[in-house]
C-alpha cells in the first residue's frame, strides 16, 4: 500500500503581463460611463450654449451684454453654474486625464484613421483642459466680475484678445474643443451602441463633422467680431447690475403707496 501523499495539484501559474478581466469587481464602469455621459450633457450642451451666446458678439457689445445679463438672471444661476458646468467639467477633465495617461498610443506602428482619432481625442482634450483652466480663471473669477457687470463682458474679452499670443491660444483652443466635442459625440454613439453598424457610424461621422465645423466656425467668427468688427468697445455698456432682484432705490416712496399713483 502506497503511503506517499497524493501529488499536490500544480499551483496556478502566476500570470505575468496584462491581467485578466476583473468580472464583478470595481466601479470603473460607472465612472467611465459618467465620463462619457457628462461629455454630452451637461458639458456638451453647455459648450453649444456658450458658442451660441458668444455669437451675439457679432451684433455688438450691447447685444453681447444683454446675452450675458440674460444668462446671469436665470433662476438659481450659481447652482446651475456649479452643478451643470464646473463640477461635471472638473470631473470630465480629471477622469479624462486619467484615461489618457493609461492609454498606449501606437500610431507610429499602426497609422490608421481610427487610431489617429484616438490620439487626437486625447491631445485635444488636454489642450481644452489647459485652456479652460486659464479661461475660467481669467474671465470668470479674475478681473471685473461679469455677473454683476454684464456690460463689461465685451471689453473684458477684447482686452484679453488684444494680446496676439492669447488670440492664438483662443483660436487653437476653439478648434481643439470643437474637434473634441464632435468626435466625442461620435464616440458616444459608437460606444453606447447607438451606431453599431459600419455604415451607421460612417453616416453619423459626417453629421458630427458638420456639427463640429459649424460650432468651430461660429466660435471663430465670435473671436473675429471681438477683435476686428467692434474695435475699441466701451469699458461698460450697461449700468451696474446688482446681484439679485432689487427695486429701484432712488424714489422717495414706492409707487404702490404713492397717493397720486393710486388716483390714476
Amino acid at each position, binding site marked *: 500500500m502506497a503511503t506517499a501523499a497524493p501529488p499536490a495539484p500544480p499551483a496556478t*501559474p502566476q*500570470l*505575468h*503581463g*496584462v*491581467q*485578466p*478581466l*476583473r*468580472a*464583478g*469587481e*470595481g466601479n*470603473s*464602469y460607472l465612472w*467611465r*460611463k459618467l465620463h462619457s455621459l457628462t461629455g454630452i450633457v451637461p458639458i456638451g450642451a453647455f459648450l453649444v450654449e456658450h458658442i451660441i451666446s458668444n455669437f451675439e458678439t457679432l451684433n455688438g457689445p450691447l447685444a453681447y451684454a444683454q446675452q450675458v445679463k440674460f444668462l446671469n438672471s436665470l433662476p438659481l444661476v450659481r447652482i446651475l453654474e456649479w452643478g451643470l458646468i464646473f463640477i461635471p467639467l472638473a470631473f470630465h477633465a480629471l477622469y479624462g486625464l486619467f*484615461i489618457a*495617461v*493609461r*492609454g*498606449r*498610443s*501606437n500610431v507610429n*506602428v*499602426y497609422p*490608421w*484613421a*481610427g*487610431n489617429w*482619432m*484616438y490620439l487626437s*481625442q486625447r491631445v485635444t482634450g488636454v489642450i481644452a483642459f489647459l485652456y479652460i483652466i486659464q479661461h475660467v480663471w481669467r474671465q470668470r473669477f479674475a478681473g471685473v466680475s461679469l455677473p454683476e457687470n454684464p456690460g463689461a463682458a465685451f471689453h473684458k474679452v477684447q482686452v484679453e484678445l488684444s494680446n496676439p499670443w492669447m488670440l492664438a491660444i483662443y483660436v487653437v483652443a476653439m478648434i481643439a474643443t470643437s474637434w473634441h466635442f464632435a468626435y466625442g459625440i461620435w*464616440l458616444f454613439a*459608437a*460606444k*453606447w*451602441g*447607438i*451606431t*453599431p*453598424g*459600419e455604415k451607421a*457610424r460612417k453616416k453619423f461621422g459626417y453629421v458630427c463633422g458638420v456639427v463640429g465645423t459649424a460650432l468651430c466656425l461660429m466660435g471663430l467668427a465670435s473671436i473675429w467680431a471681438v477683435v476686428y468688427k467692434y474695435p475699441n468697445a466701451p469699458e461698460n455698456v450697461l449700468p451696474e447690475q446688482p446681484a439679485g432682484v432689487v427695486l429701484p432705490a432712488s424714489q422717495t416712496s414706492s409707487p404702490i403707496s404713492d397717493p397720486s399713483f393710486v388716483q390714476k
Partner: protein
Amino acid sequence: MAQSTIKVEIKRQSSPGAAAVTEKFEIPYRPGMNITSLLGEIALNPVDVAGKATTPVTYDSNCLEEICGSCAMLINGKARMACSALVDKLEQPITLAPLSKFPVVRDLAVDRSVLFENLKKVKAWVPIDGTYDLGPGPKQAPQIQEQRYPLSNCISCTICMEVCPQFNDATGFVGAATIAQTKLFNMDPSGSVLKEERLRALAGDGGIQECGFAQNCVQACPKQLPLTEAISDMGRDVFVQQVKDLFAR
C-alpha cells in the same frame, strides 16, 4: 535580377527572464515562402549570418493555414500571422519579434493565457453539460446564423489585443476578442441562458468600458471579424443590463 537570399533579423530570448538579443540570418531565396517556412529553413540549418551556430527559433504554430491562431508575431513591427505573411511581399531585412504585450516564453513564443482567462470570465461557452440527455437544441434562424458565423471565425490569435492602445498593464482591458465571443454566445439560442452573467462580467474593472474605439482591432484582425460592431452592440447590452440590475434587482 532575382534576389538570391532573404535577410531576417529575429529578436530572441532564451527564457522568460532572459535579456533579448537580435540574431541575423540570411536564407537562400525560394519563391512563395511565408514566415513559417522561413523559420523552418532556419531550423534546418540554424547558423546565423556570421556563420555562428545557434538554436532553431522557438515559435507557436500548428495549422500553418491561418486557422489555429498560434503563430501571431510582430513581422516588420506589425502584429500578423506568420503563416499568411508572404516573404515576397515583405520589405527586407524582415524583422521578427514576439508580440509585445504578452510575456515571452522563449524567442517568438508568448504566453497568451490572459485571453483564455478572459473567455472563462465571460463564460464563452454553451452550457449543455448535464446528467441526462438534453435533447436537440432550439432551432437557430438563418438570420441569427448569419450574424454569428463571422464572430465564430475568431482564432484567438490575440492580434486585436496586441494592436489595441487600451490593452495594457495600466487598464487590464479585456480586449476585442472576448467581447466578440460574448456576443457570439449571447446570440446562441442555448447559450443565451448565460447572457446576463456575461454582460455583468463585462462591466467589471477592465471591462468593455475601457474600449477607446481606436478601431485597430477591426483593422488588424486576420479573420475580418466585425469587432467594432460587436463592441458597440455589447456596449449597449452591458449598459441596459446595468440599468436593469440597478432598478430591478
